[in-house]
């Protein structure tokens, strides 16, 4: 019952809202963040240590290995930004892997047919956003469960990627496109900069604009948001559009890294992305989650996968580990909610 903020709600003593200094609002922010991200964070740290131990590899902590982990993070991490938005908004997007594949062949096709690098980036973003908006329209205006909607587009988009390419890779000879995937600036690969840039852009937007406010509101109580005048279906177009767009960007990064657009690429990306988002503390029921948490979730997953590879485990074991991590994360989310409900 004691209120650390000093509020006295016993009535009769109206307490003027304490002037919020930079420090106290900073402390409040830290408290909220830890309560949202924290449980996931501690689990991540715990398992992280286990992985470090298991690999027992002095190489694991070297700078070049961190860059390796960073590169591994990029594709999952970029797509996870959009998935975080959709999951906080109470939705779900299974189509990110298929969208990434479609965008990888689309962007590769653009540069291969004389387009500029900028045009191929735009193509990747546009392909992703368009498919995402379709997802949003079907779940919003069509009132179809997002699992079904995006399971459908998951199949459709992957199928179209095969059909449109005749099941062939689109190999790129464009130098700038390949450099995007290979070269570095200021000690970090371009693609890691792209990853960090996406988190910074959305980290800036979410607390400052209606986009973020409505994302939490719709995920928390869609009906309340609609009654308050939020155009819920229109915003769903935006949220799923962003998810698609980020998946498209992830596909572009993948194509640039490989120098090839591959219709069968990014299979299983949705598993990794959703695992990372849930590990990061986002609730499957919507309304809660943080971009920072997702970033930590992606970091954890990348360390886990890198550690597994470097400890010589069978590659197939990665899927086992990801699936287990996903289920554990959801169990943990349930447990946390149960505890909150009792408290």
């Amino acid at each position, binding site marked *: 019952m004691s209120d650390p903020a000093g509020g006295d709600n016993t009535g009769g003593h109206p307490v003027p809202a304490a002037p919020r200094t930079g420090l106290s609002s900073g402390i*409040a922010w830290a408290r909220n963040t830890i309560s949202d991200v924290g449980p996931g964070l501690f689990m991540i740290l715990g398992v992280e240590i286990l992985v470090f131990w298991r690999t027992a590899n002095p190489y694991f902590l070297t700078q070049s290995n961190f860059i390796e982990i960073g590169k591994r993070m990029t594709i999952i991490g970029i797509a996870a930004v959009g998935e975080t938005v959709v999951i906080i908004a109470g939705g779900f997007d299974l189509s990110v892997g298929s969208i990434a594949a479609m965008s990888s062949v689309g962007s590769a096709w653009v540069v291969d047919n004389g387009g500029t690098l900028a045009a191929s980036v735009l193509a990747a973003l546009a392909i992703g956003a368009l498919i995402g908006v379709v997802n949003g329209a079907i779940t919003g205006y069509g009132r179809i469960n997002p699992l079904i909607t995006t399971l459908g587009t998951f199949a459709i988009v992957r199928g179209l990627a095969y059909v449109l390419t005749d099941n062939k890779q689109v190999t790129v000879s464009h130098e700038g496109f390949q450099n995007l995937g290979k070269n570095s600036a200021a000690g970090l690969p371009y693609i890691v900069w792209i990853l960090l840039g996406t988190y910074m852009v959305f980290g800036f937007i979410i607390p400052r*604009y209606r986009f973020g*406010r409505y994302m939490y509101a719709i995920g928390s109580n869609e009906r309340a948001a609609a009654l*308050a*005048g939020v155009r819920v279906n229109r915003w769903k177009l935006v949220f799923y559009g962003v998810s698609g767009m980020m998946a498209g960007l992830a596909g572009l990064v993948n194509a640039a890294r490989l120098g090839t657009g591959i219709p069968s690429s990014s299979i299983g990306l949705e598993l990794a992305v959703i695992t990372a988002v849930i590990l990061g503390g986002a609730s499957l029921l919507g309304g*809660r989650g943080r971009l920072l948490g997702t970033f930590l979730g992606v970091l954890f997953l990348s360390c886990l996968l890198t550690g597994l590879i470097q400890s010589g485990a069978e590659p197939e074991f990665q899927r086992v580990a990801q699936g287990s991590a996903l289920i554990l994360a959801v169990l943990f989310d349930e447990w946390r909610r149960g505890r909150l409900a009792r408290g």
Partner: protein
Amino acid sequence: MPSNAIELRDIEKSFGPVEVLKGVSLSVPTSRCYGLVGDNGAGKSTLLKILSGVHPRDAGEILVEGEPVDFHAAIDARFAGIEMIYQDLALAEDLDAASNIFLGRERHKGRIPGVKRLDHRRMRAEAAAVLESVGSPMPTDRKVKTLSGGERQLVAVARALEFNPRILLMDEPTAALSVEKVNVVNRLITRLKDRGVTMILVSHRFTDLIQVADTIGVLVHGKIVDEFDVANQTMDDMTSRIVRLMSEAAVGALQ
């Protein structure tokens, strides 16, 4: 003769084969409080939802200050100065009190045209002020899910009042409250009447309504079967009148 802030004429509404409202007419003069009593399923909430733009009506007319209106969404009614407090409060529990109060009508700042940045500082300050005016000063940055039932109720009331409504609709405002909090809400309703706000309250607890309403209407099976001014009646008369009508309705439903 005082002008009517709100007037309903022969409102009808069915959901599929179920006739919920069978021609409801009522009028509420400005800054008066109309209490609608009725059993569960009598159509009280449906009537309020039609007034607040949630449901379209099948037939009939709604006049706000003499002008016929047509709402297609809750936000239309709000822009017409009609605020509604829902029985379940319709709050986004993961947002804080200030964010809930301004949900859908955020305050913005910023000089770049077309780019609207949320003005957190202004929304927090205004939220704190309106919460204090309803007698519930509380930190505006706490998530609603951490608040007590009474505090949530007052957040919902504060949200309705922030935008200076002319007409306030409340669906079971006291159903979830302790006796003590009922008194807080009742005092608030009296103060709002003094400020010129017209109200329609809906409840199945008529003892709460009688304390604040000027007129009581009894809704039975989608029709207003009785209507009287509270000032002209003794408590006993009203109680026996309402109890008789509602028990007749219950017996009728059984037969």
